[in-house]
């Protein structure tokens, strides 16, 4: 069943990466939304595109989908040039926008059939595709509901269905789980894995770093630049010796004091735990004494200091902080 939904008739550009950009840049007036982006996304993978708001994620996706002309640089999407082969890209890719962008006064089915129609899928083929995709996504029961009346989770799944109507080889998803409850997010990700297993490449932006952990590889955007990319595990490993944990009662005072310490990039509060990120790898036992001393001085003595397993969130904060101090 998954196979039927995801199988693709022809697969041209065998061996090409799903996305390959070279020095891709986009300027808006005086702002460099994306600068000098060189990125490679392998086929058959889920690529997580991360970064804070305004980092240039949506601008990048829009350039890759042909919605926006790059100011300079080049990119190939599904083996096609984004400047000269826009029409082939449109047929090979699907795009699910950040905000719900279906017709609220049309029913789910009408929305799906409309998008099918513009891709040339009509008649029996459309009926078949509708049954297939709606069943697969579990949205058969909302066929006749007007899209505007649906709740967040249903809307997202319907939007995904419409983006899949023409069986794209590559799917761009801009914040697919924004504003969706955890169980719906779970369903969505299960389905994305099914798609990926069927051979579709996925390019996903997200704010949820726990979701980023599920991607095969990720890229971090900050201020329009790609500051890191790789498999989540490999990226986490880079922080292995830069992160130290500390348990404390008065977290706010302790944080303030530790942030002032030379060599400390940032301190984040997790309940009674502080996660202290250093600029350079350190030996946690060697710095423990200094941390105790400074916190004590601020009237917030630490209960204990210990090594930590880094998460992508730590990484993200580390990069963001590093970038902010660098500029």
């Amino acid at each position: 069943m998954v196979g039927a939904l995801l199988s693709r008739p022809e697969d041209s550009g065998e061996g090409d990466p799903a996305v390959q950009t070279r020095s891709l840049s986009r300027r808006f007036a005086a702002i460099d939304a994306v600068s000098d982006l060189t990125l490679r996304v392998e086929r058959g993978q889920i690529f997580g595109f991360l970064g804070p708001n305004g980092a240039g994620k949506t601008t990048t996706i829009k350039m890759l989908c042909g919605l926006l002309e790059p100011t300079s640089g080049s990119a190939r999407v599904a083996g096609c040039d984004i400047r000269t082969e826009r029409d082939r890209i449109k047929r090979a890719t699907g795009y699910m926008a950040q905000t719900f962008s279906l017709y609220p006064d049309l029913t789910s089915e009408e929305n799906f059939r409309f998008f099918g129609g513009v891709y040339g899928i009509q008649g029996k083929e459309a009926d078949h595709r509708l049954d297939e995709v709606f069943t697969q996504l579990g949205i058969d029961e909302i066929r006749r509901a007007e899209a505007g009346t649906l709740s967040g989770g249903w809307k997202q799944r319907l939007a995904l269905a419409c983006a899949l109507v023409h069986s794209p080889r590559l799917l761009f998803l801009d914040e697919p789980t924004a504003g969706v409850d955890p169980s719906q997010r779970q369903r969505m990700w299960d389905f994305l894995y099914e798609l990926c297993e069927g051979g579709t490449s996925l390019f996903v932006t997200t704010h949820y770093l726990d979701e980023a952990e599920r991607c095969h590889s990720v890229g971090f955007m900050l201020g329009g630049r790609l500051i890191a990319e790789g498999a989540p595990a490999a990226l986490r490993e880079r922080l292995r010796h830069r992160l130290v944990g500390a348990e404390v009662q008065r977290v706010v005072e302790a944080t303030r004091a530790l942030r002032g310490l030379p060599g400390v990039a940032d301190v984040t509060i997790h309940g009674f735990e502080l996660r202290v990120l250093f600029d350079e790898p350190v030996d946690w036992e060697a710095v423990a004494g200094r941390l105790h001393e400074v916190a004590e001085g601020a009237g917030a003595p630490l209960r204990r200091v210990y090594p930590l397993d880094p998460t992508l969130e730590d990484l993200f904060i580390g990069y963001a902080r590093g970038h902010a101090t660098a500029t």
Partner: protein
Amino acid sequence: MRNVYHLALKEFLHLWRDRRTLVFLLLTPSILTVLFGYAIGNPKVTAIRTRVLDRDGGRIANEYVEAISSSLTFKPEIVEDATEAEVARAEEDLRTDRIAAYVVLPEGLTRDADAGRSVRVRVIVDGSDTFAAPAVLRELGSTTVQQNAFLAANLRVRDGRAVTTEEGLHQVAPIELGHELRFNPELKSQNFVMPGVIGLILQLLTVIVMSTSIARERERGTMDQLAVTPLTPAEIFVGKLLPYFLISLLVTINVMLLARWLFGVSLQGHYPVVAALVVSFILGSLGVGQMISIVSRNQSQAVQLAVTFILPAFVLSGAFVPIETQPESVRPVAYLFPLTYFCRGFRAALLRQATMFDVRGDLLAMLLFVVATFGASVLMLRARPDAR
């Protein structure tokens, strides 16, 4: 282009869901037809294009020429020593709306009038302009009365004798003003106004409704979703336009039937001419609407822009009152609106049974509008598909 069908179908679904728009589309034209049909004032008319065919050349003919030339009512064109052929040409020019009236000062006018013999000055007026026609007759009537009074005084002084009532009538009023009204002999005002009203309604409908269509997609964020599909800008343009084009045609027929039933306006022109005018006007106006929509960020902006376009068109186009009543300084502005050409051509077609050749100028102007707005819209859609 097969894809266009699906886009058009979707637009229909939108209309069906949006009951308020649907009611507006179908009901407002009828209401406006009734309102505008009754509520037309009587503005002062000036500079009526009038040709004076002087076949006399004598003193009284000069008096007429002088009176016509010095009156603001007329924009005269004097033909001295006019021939029969020139009279015939004036009749043709009246039909093709090159002139709005012509006056024939007959051979022997001065001689006969001085002798107290009855003589007839002919004035032929285009009755389809119900504002200009009475003004022409009024002015020439007063000139005639004045001339007759002078003549009567002269005769009395010269003869110094009493006259019988019978003879006196001839002596007092030797000049008779013979008027002939063409195209709308009863000077029925609806005959003039209704073609303009139909133009106004179509203008309002097409520009407003079309102006929100792409702006709405943009407001909902669906424009991006459309732009990533293989639909080309031209297909998006045509698919969006088609439903509104068909509805506009329906409304035109509806309004023309109402005009006939309620006001007895006999709208009988050559059908191909009427159809060509209506189609090119609707397309041009929808093109303007699309352009407004493409440059607008959201629907309310689009409507504001549309109204901004429509209002001057309403006032200046000559839909209610002849364009001649506008001051010369603003008249060129009227030619920026397709409504101006439509009103002129439509009136000619319906009231004077104009041929395709007669209205070629108006048709051409409106088709230029179609080409310009369609071209600009598609180019703008291509240049910035997401328009941000």
